[in-house]
């Protein structure tokens, strides 16, 4: 395979490309989906092929083929170079790449417990047992489990990246994910719904270590309580405490995305949008207080966004996107790094062989503090703790955002008391980061699939953070 990729790179260079990159990329996956413990079916997928990216006179072109034949790879190389040449006449600002140390390495994530060591029978039993767990967690006879959907998936991603600047990186990363949708209903109170998931790189230990059965039991119990006993959100402004699930999402949406350098430079302007960050503000503008340190780190073992080298062959490292409130370091590939006069920080990833590598997050989180949760809320006279969410969205510059709270509690005299149904918060990124009062030490991560690019590329990530205490906010309520 290496020979085929090196041939593609050399052939592109011989056709005039100033830069060439070839990637062998294979994804193999299996999933099982059930409703109410009953299996719908199984899906499996194999995606394997070669991706080629070339640059000619500052113009970039990408082409891919599922074929591993030399003649077919040569043909897509020729077309990529031809397209780059055709595009170069429309280029006013020519693309260039930063000078980076290229990786020469091979690595793999070794599962502690191979997915093959767990039988399909056991994987199916997990579906049934989780449903039973959900059923028996309902206490009140007036509440019914309207829908319990579970999707289990396992995947192996294998890649070899070579380029004309000397990169050679071979990697293999297995991943496991599980997603659950629970809907409870009551004739008088209506319905309540929660989607949540677990996921990480590795083998079946991701499931074993996730406490998924406890999560299901706990979630059903809480949803039932909210449905039956949840109170209306308070009308006056209250102190706000957000749970790590909400905080993690905020880090992803309002720091990770706007700190993608390609977005800052307008490359994603048509669809994914732009950024509140302007290029000349990086390293200068303070948007938050001393608690606002946000990190994107692909090197966290076991994480869903794990990698050690990106798809341009650059060695990965943690990136401090915000540091103590200052816009510190955007996520870069080699093209954006060149524009910013810096080096790539290895943020270039592609979903599969049919995808160009673009700037992506990996595992994005708010730095935790050193308090306990009790210390975080002990002096709050009257407030709200929004621990989880369902609905969320943010504008296309990543400034104004909304979260529909799901598990939420009143805080009265320093203690969690009544459950609150459907509180809604809307604020700006600036408000959030300037109004952090304290963070606790309970750093927790959540799995997600991040969408970006044209065509859309969904890639696995984690996002996380501690519980965060903020200033006062006036709450909304979900429409009825």
């Amino acid at each position: 395979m290496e020979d085929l990729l090196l041939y593609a790179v050399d052939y592109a260079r011989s056709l005039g490309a100033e830069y060439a990159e070839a990637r062998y990329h294979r994804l193999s996956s299996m999933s099982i989906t059930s409703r109410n413990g009953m299996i719908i079916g199984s899906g499996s997928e194999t995606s394997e092929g070669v991706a080629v990216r070339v640059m000619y006179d500052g113009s970039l072109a990408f082409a891919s083929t599922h074929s591993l034949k030399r003649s077919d790879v040569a043909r897509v190389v020729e077309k990529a170079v031809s397209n780059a040449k055709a595009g170069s006449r429309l280029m006013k600002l020519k693309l260039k790449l930063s000078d980076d140390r290229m990786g020469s390495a091979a690595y793999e994530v070794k599962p502690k417990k191979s997915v093959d060591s767990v039988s399909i029978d056991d994987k199916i039993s997990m579906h049934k047992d989780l449903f039973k767990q959900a059923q028996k967690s309902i206490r009140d006879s007036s509440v019914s489990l309207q829908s319990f959907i579970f999707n289990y998936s396992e995947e192996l991603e294998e890649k070899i990246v070579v380029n004309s600047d000397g990169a050679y990186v071979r990697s293999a990363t297995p991943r496991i994910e599980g997603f659950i949708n629970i809907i409870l209903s009551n004739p008088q109170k209506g319905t309540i719904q929660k989607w949540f998931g677990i996921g990480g790189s590795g083998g079946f230990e991701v499931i074993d270590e996730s406490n998924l059965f406890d999560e299901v039991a706990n979630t059903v119990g809480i949803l039932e309580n909210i449905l039956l006993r949840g109170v209306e959100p308070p009308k006056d402004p209250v102190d706000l405490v957000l749970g790590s699930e909400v905080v993690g999402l905020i880090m992803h949406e309002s720091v990770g995305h706007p700190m993608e350098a390609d977005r800052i430079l307008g490359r994603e302007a048509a669809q994914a949008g732009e950024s509140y960050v302007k290029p000349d503000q990086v390293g200068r503008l303070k948007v938050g207080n001393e608690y606002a340190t946000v990190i994107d780190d692909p090197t966290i073992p076991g994480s869903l966004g794990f990698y050690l080298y990106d798809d341009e062959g650059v060695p990965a490292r943690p990136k401090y996107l915000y540091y103590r409130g200052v816009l510190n370091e955007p996520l870069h590939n080699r093209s954006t790094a060149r524009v910013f006069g810096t080096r790539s920080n290895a943020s270039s990833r592609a979903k599969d062989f049919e995808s160009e590598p673009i700037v992506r997050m990996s595992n994005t989180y708010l730095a935790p503090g050193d308090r306990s949760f009790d210390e975080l809320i002990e002096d709050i006279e009257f407030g709200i703790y929004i621990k989880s969410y369902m609905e969320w969205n943010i504008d296309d510059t990543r400034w104004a955002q909304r979260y529909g709270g799901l598990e939420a509690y009143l805080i009265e005299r320093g203690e969690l008391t009544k459950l609150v149904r459907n509180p809604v918060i809307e604020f700006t990124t600036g408000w959030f980061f300037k109004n952090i009062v304290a963070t606790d030490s309970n750093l927790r991560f959540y799995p997600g699939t991040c969408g970006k690019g044209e065509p859309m590329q969904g890639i696995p990530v984690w996002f996380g953070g501690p519980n965060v205490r903020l200033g006062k906010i006036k709450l909304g309520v979900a429409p009825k």
Partner: protein
Amino acid sequence: MIEDLGGRVLNYARSLGFEDVAVETLEIKRTMVKIANSQPSVIQLWEGIDLSIYLAKNKRILVYNIKSDSADKVFAGVKNALSSISRLEESFLYAPLPEVDEKPKPLDGASDPVIRELISDPSDLTYKLINEAHENGADRVAGTLDLESVKRCLTTSTGLDICEDTTGIIAYMRAFSGDNSGHWGYASRILSEDEILEVPRKASEYATVSKGNTRIEPGRYDLILSPLVIGSLSNYIAYAASGLSKIMGVSFLARYRIDDDVAGEGFSLCDDPSRPDLYGSSGFDSEGVPTVRKCIIDSGRLKSFLHNSKTAAFLKEKTTGNAGWIMPHPFALTIGKGELEENELIEELKRGLIINNNWYTRLQNSVEGVFSTVTRDALLVVENGEIVGQSKRMRIADTFPNLLKNIELLSKRLYKVSWWEISTAIEAPYVLVRNINITRPSL
């Protein structure tokens, strides 16, 4: 080539003992020019073969997807599926692949030689699109031009063996002028130069509306939703009408019975795979059932859910020719037109907002249809039937049942649109909807 591959895979799967087999092969040639800052940021090319293989044995179901033209690799995957499927349990959704009385026909006139030619070199059309945006006042423009040619073949164990050639073009552009932006899209199987050049023109038109900024307070407003906005929201309605959404218990349409009033009486949302000009159209679904036009909502009344043979059997209905082996889906959506010119719609609005575009629609509760979505690009303020100002980035935060019931008027002209937020392309008018909740952050 792919005609042979489908048959060989089918025969191999049958020889292994699979009872129901369907092999869908796509031979794809596709080019996409991505535009940013008024120049191409990358030109992408794909040539490949996608196989989707439906396998069932003893009522157990497995779907295998592979991108390959290598029979050996595909056979290996199918053989592997045999060992997996024997360990599964019976699917509660299983129904045999349908025997069709009338053999489907491939769609005529859905392949455009001009698009096939453009796939080889889209640079002239790219230049025209960028130039048209600038000539209409944009400072800069971003977008994509996406061109495809697809041969789709379906071979089934019920004896069907059929192929269909289609082309497709999707273009969307976002024009910027100072702090303002406008967005438009276009999707079709057949290229119309007039319609595609309307994309940069309309995007620029919205970007260059020179009205002062007006702060809008949260509250209930009457709205005109552009075809992009009602097209995006109608995708959620259409997927809520999928039979599988109903079975899974996640659809806000499941509470209604057929013929219930669910929307304003002028509103009709239909799936029309039979129109060769609509992007996504096809003569047959993935089970080989001939496709037909059917309305999900007709003149405000719920008329049909979308079914494949499985969801139809489970719900004691008939297939609507919308397979998806597991998930029934719309092919090509249309909203019926109204009677008003667009300026007349603004006069009827009297006071309210015109929303050019939206994104990031999320549901707090899919059963009750509680959602919010963020407006983007032009958000125009109307007083006394005239555009008097503009605002930015408000949210629609309401429920789908409310939204549907409050649709009052529609424009005459229909636009074929698609973009990120419109996964199934749609032909849609402007829509006037009354009394919708609008929010914005106060902090």
